[in-house]
């Protein structure tokens, strides 16, 4: 079971067909579908704090297209917020990046992929858990 987590840049790229990385991110989503068609359980995940940073309001009509891709929310609930606070304090990361790190820790999966503009930052907020950080 794998989770493919979107950071702010990945969300920006997915939501804007004119973004220069749009096709790259779409290719990653298509890769998720490729594996799911074969029965693998692969989730596309966005931390809700990343949605805030990226301005992705699911209730906004302009978000209708990106909502259809089924990139599911990982909520900043009490336990995740506590973890994210510790990550932010330790690394000085932004709220959104700290939430990514908390999501990586809270997902009950060993195989976590993060689509990001900054793999080093994502590895830092996710440590000590190993991730596959892919630069988009």
């Amino acid at each position, binding site marked *: 079971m794998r989770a*493919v987590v979107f950071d702010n840049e990945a969300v920006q790229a997915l939501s804007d067909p004119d973004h220069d990385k749009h*096709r790259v991110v779409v290719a990653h989503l*298509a890769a998720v*579908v490729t594996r799911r*068609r074969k029965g693998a359980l692969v989730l596309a995940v966005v931390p809700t704090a990343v949605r805030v940073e990226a301005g992705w309001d699911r209730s906004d009509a302009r978000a209708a297209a990106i909502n259809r891709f089924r990139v599911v929310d990982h909520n900043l609930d009490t336990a995740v917020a506590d973890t994210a606070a510790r990550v932010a304090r330790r690394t000085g990361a932004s709220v959104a990046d700290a939430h990514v790190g908390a999501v990586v820790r809270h997902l009950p999966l060993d195989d976590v992929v993060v689509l990001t503009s900054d793999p080093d930052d994502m590895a830092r907020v996710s440590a000590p858990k190993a991730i596959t950080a892919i630069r988009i």
Partner: protein
Amino acid sequence: MSRTTMLWYIGSVVVSDVLDKLNELLDSEDGSTVNTSMRLPSALREATALAVEQLGVAPSTTTFTTAALRRALETAVMEAALEAHYGQYPAARPSLAEVALALAAQDRSALADQPHLIERAAAEVAARYPHADADDVLLWAQAQQALSA
């Protein structure tokens, strides 16, 4: 009618409306259940019960069937959403090689660092098997590598 056009309209219904309704239903927290009149092949039903009881694949046949149905529906929605997106933005459609490259990166495969090999493999596989997918491309590329080693 082209596949793209078919994906935008089912009869008089716009696919985006169908996808929105499907997503709404899949995300619903309404836990109410319904006794379905869906007819299952009896052998399949018996196999499911046996797998649940003896192999522990799920807590119950209902859980197993519901999870399988949900996974299949979610995948169908994701795939249809991508196809609809490509219909609206043809330039957004990644090539087979681009999807294979993305998959290689997600798999942490060394092939992710060899885009030219993947491009060549994609071209060769697609020429022989028009319905090949990204996994087929990666397998082909690995086989080519093994042969040339």
